């Protein structure tokens, strides 16, 4: 989940990932119940995305469509939170993404109370994350800072596209796809909500924040 650390851009508030993870060889035996319990708790506080690190996120491609689904606009871009939870079959990183600090605080309170014994991390803006922890009565143990990008910065895409694609740290949200959906939103052929869902699908960890993507895509209407 270094993949959640380096998220570029000015909109850090409203972009948090809370995740639970077992330590290999120490507390990973029988951890699936605890990881499932974590996601079940997190799902009560309206996450904008969820993932189990293996099976996928809330937003997924469909493997056997037929033209009638397209024609009748009956596509299912999203699966139920229960499906993501039930797919946890062993050690993994169970993640839930939130667009509000208050939700993160509520999740932390609930997880602390449940005392699941899994390591719980929050990836987010530093101040907001610490405030959420403090309100939940938690003293953080360790912290990893993002020192952002170095090297050939000229190889990076334009700022709003970079902001979109760094929401998947595995690099699965392509800059070309981000530009394509941004144009389609501008042309009125996609809503920003639909476009954000297309961008969320390649991210298998559930770390992509479609709510933030929608805001960026709306702003991108005024680009170019």
């Amino acid at each position, binding site marked *: *989940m270094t993949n959640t650390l*380096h998220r570029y851009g000015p909109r850090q508030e409203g972009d948090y990932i809370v995740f639970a993870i077992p330590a290999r060889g120490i507390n990973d035996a029988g951890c699936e119940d605890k990881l499932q319990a974590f996601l079940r708790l997190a799902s009560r506080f309206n996450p904008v995305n969820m993932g189990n690190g293996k099976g996928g996120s809330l937003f997924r*491609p469909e493997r056997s469509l037929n033209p009638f689904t397209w024609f009748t606009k009956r596509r299912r871009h999203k699966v139920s939170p229960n499906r993501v939870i039930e797919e946890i079959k062993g050690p993994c990183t169970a993640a839930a993404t939130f667009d509000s600090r208050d939700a993160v605080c509520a999740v932390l309170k609930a997880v602390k109370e449940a005392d699941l014994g899994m390591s719980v991390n929050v990836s987010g803006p530093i101040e907001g*994350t610490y405030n959420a922890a403090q309100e939940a009565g938690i003293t953080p143990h360790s*912290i*990893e800072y993002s020192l952002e*990008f170095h*090297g050939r910065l000229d190889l990076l895409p334009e700022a709003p596209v970079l902001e979109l694609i760094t929401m998947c740290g595995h690099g699965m949200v392509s800059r*070309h796809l981000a530009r394509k959906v941004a144009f389609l939103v501008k042309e009125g052929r996609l809503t920003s909500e639909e476009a954000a869902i297309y961008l969320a699908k390649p991210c298998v960890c559930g770390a992509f924040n479609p709510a933030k993507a929608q805001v960026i895509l709306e702003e991108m209407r005024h680009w170019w």
Partner: protein
Amino acid sequence: MWINPKLCVGCANCIPFCPVGAIAVGPSGVAVIDRDACVECANCYRSMSRENLPPWLVRTLRKAAQLLRLRPDPDLDICPTGAITPEPLEWPRVVRSLFSDPTSEHKVTGVAGRGTEEAKTNDVTGRTKEGEAGFTVELGRPGVGVTFAEIEDVTASLANLGISFEPKNPVTSLMEDPKTGRIRKDILQERILSAIVEFTVPLEQVPEVLRTVEEVSTRLQTVVSIGVYTRNARDGSNPLLGILHQLGYRPQRAKVNMGLGRPLAEGR
């Protein structure tokens, strides 16, 4: 990855899905993958929806639409014929998939994922203690790509500082000798989407490490993202942040381990 020319209808939907721009529709009217550029991330295969329609039907419909000057508006994430096909990968090409496809398992390196648990389980593992700093230096992200030759430039420079690389990290597992940071010669030209170099140093060494990474970054043909972590002091304060401020870094974003894992390393 391979696109089956018998199935492909040249609709071009897959092109923007490739993070490194390796797919193009060629003169024959079907999509072709540039094997040198492809990092075997499988995004084109995994992230697109499929209709599995007979190609003759799709080609006929596309031709009819062209003749009638119609501009169909298909969903942008569908491969209508399921033409994108994963291939079995041999060594050394398989390392591309191991470092680029987030769903692939490191059977060869014996390590799962691109990195390790880092600070995420530090409450339970006690891997990085007070007075130490753990580094995650990631090369190639986001969507730029990197070769192992460039990764070696970084690891060899860091090895000169006398640091020890994290033994469970997949890049370390591909080093000829972790003391020198030299990587196996047979994979040096392989191109991957990104890799993470991990190590722990005393806090005093943080400025030297950062200077070295910054300096090497200037001669690489890729992008480097640096993460650095530490265990907070018992009162919640963090000595690393002061060092970073002195060096001119003003971090905005972080990953915070809440210390809810059990059993706690300090109690074991």
